């Protein structure tokens, strides 16, 4: 029993991390159909900027806020100077631009920050909460709560605000959206800024658990991307469910099967799910237009 609960706790901890990272992919995808391969770098920027501002003597809450603003600025710049300049390029080219951006941001981080690992203090201490013989850190709950809050905000935004509806309209048909008076360029730019902010928040919340360095974004983005696809790309709730499922799979595979092959087990399950449900767990089938 204690074992099972511990694996569950581990899965929730790791899953919440993946969920937070996965959430960052949804908005940009919704607005522009682009998978942003630099999303992991936003996560890195959030954590690393907070760490370095903190080292410079700025109180951590303020440092975190500045880090989020900084990441948003980078997101906007990425849109303005790269994505927008390449307007009209196809999706593969746009994705390649985000790959270039991720290489650039990683390169910049190792020059302007450093190559060491860093951490941030846990928000509510590191005394584990014990439950039937298992233990979970308060920070894991913070990350979970963060994921839930972001989902609710995203959902409210998309379903309940005019701006949100404009994002969806832009995604569905950009030309039509423009015809009804939506400034689609601004909408896509906006989605980059918000996605960057989500990534940065994720980076700040998870750093006390995962630690951070200039290179941390690559693997996190990989898992986050897989989680988002598992849940159904573009659906906020799907990102969270995909993240949690992926985390739980890894934890239970490591606990009960083989710690060497836990990642393999996780990806085998993802492949199987996609074969059965080609649009992910929460996705709806789209019909190709001729």
């Amino acid at each position, binding site marked *: 029993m204690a074992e099972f609960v511990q694996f569950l706790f581990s899965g929730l901890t790791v899953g919440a991390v993946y969920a937070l990272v996965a959430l960052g992919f949804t908005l940009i995808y919704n607005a522009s159909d682009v*998978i942003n391969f630099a999303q992991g770098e936003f996560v890195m920027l959030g954590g690393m900027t907070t760490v370095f501002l903190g080292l410079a003597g700025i109180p951590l809450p303020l440092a975190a806020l500045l880090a989020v603003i900084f990441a948003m600025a980078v997101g906007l710049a990425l849109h303005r100077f790269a994505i927008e300049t390449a307007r009209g390029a196809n999706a*593969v080219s746009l994705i*390649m631009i985000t790959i270039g951006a991720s*290489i*650039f941001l990683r390169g910049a981080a190792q*020059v302007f920050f450093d190559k060491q690992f860093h951490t941030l203090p846990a928000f509510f201490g590191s005394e584990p909460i014990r439950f039937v013989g298992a233990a979970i850190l308060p920070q894991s709950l913070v990350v979970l709560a963060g994921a839930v809050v972001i989902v609710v905000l995203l959902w409210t935004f998309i379903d309940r605000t005019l701006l949100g509806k404009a994002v969806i309209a832009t995604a569905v048909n950009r030309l039509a959206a423009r015809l009804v008076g939506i400034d689609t360029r601004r909408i896509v730019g906006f989605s980059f800024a918000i996605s960057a902010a989500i990534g940065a928040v994720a980076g700040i919340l998870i750093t006390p658990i995962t630690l951070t360095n200039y290179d941390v974004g690559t693997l996190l983005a990989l898992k986050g991307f897989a989680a988002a696809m598992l849940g159904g790309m573009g659906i906020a709730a799907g990102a969270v469910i995909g993240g949690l499922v992926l985390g739980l799979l890894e934890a239970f595979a490591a606990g009960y099967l083989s710690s060497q092959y836990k990642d393999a087990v996780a990806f085998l399950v993802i*492949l199987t799910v996609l074969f059965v449900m080609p649009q992910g767990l929460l996705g709806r089938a789209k019909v*190709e237009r001729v």
Partner: protein
Amino acid sequence: MLRHTADRIPAVLRRPFVQRLSAIAVIAVIAIVIPAFFPSTYYYRVAALVFVFAIAAIGLNLLMGFAGQVSLGHAGFMGIGAYAVAIGPTHFNIPSWLSFLIGAALSAFVAFIVGRPILRLKGHYLAVATLGFGLLLAIVFVNEARLTGGPDGMLVPRPVLFGWSVRGTETWYWIAAISFVFGAALAANLIDSPTGRALRAIHDSEVAARVLGVDVAKQKLVIFIISAVYASVAGSYLAAFNGHITPDVSGFLRSIELVAMVVLGGIGSIAGSLVGAALLVMLPQVLTFLHDYEQMVLGLVVMGVMIFLRAGIVPSIAAALSRRRA
């Protein structure tokens, strides 16, 4: 991922066969002449690497450009080819040339098995499935240390052909260059075969192709298998050439690098695959003088090419030239 590319076939693909073949002939001439300008074997090595990676890129290009399918796991097939020529002679006493063929056959077989379910997926879902597949292979290479040497890798015995030990950077340059020209010609031939035409129909519109009686699933599978064999051959060459192999060859970043070679060079352009491979193999060599700023500049170059040459280097330049002529 490819919904937008599906809108139209890249212009390069519409060029007649003869023209495509003449491009390959030009590459062949360059491959023969250029070593005269190499001051040392270091240049042979870089050029050989360009051709080796270009072979893998052509395969992936066939898949991306003609079937409109992306694969983020193609380095996995390079891994199969690479470990085949390493494990075969080391553990099972199978000669290198036979291991090479077994590797290619194994890649084709694996592509055949995973191809059907994977290729049912579309766009990004296909991307993540191939990514997962590549990662699975990489995990196996890392963990089955008794066979593969684990993360530190293993030595690859020198191939021996008819009693002649294949070694030396120059030798490998010629092997890679000749294989590339051969592979490129095969690819050009394929594009103009009935399979190629069917694939282009799929690229334009899967539904329309199906209505016209094209067995879409089968055609996609065929091209997936072919592209896997290209990657496997490149992997075998890389392993035998380097004499040492680590799981790094099949990693996620290598897969991304292959995709980048295809996209930067130009989707659908065979010469583009060579240019893309040349760019990504040579840039890290050229940029060393930048030291800590190397990665930043590399990222900027990738972004810049895509922003200013949207269709990829070769197709964009070709289009610009023909515009000027007209």
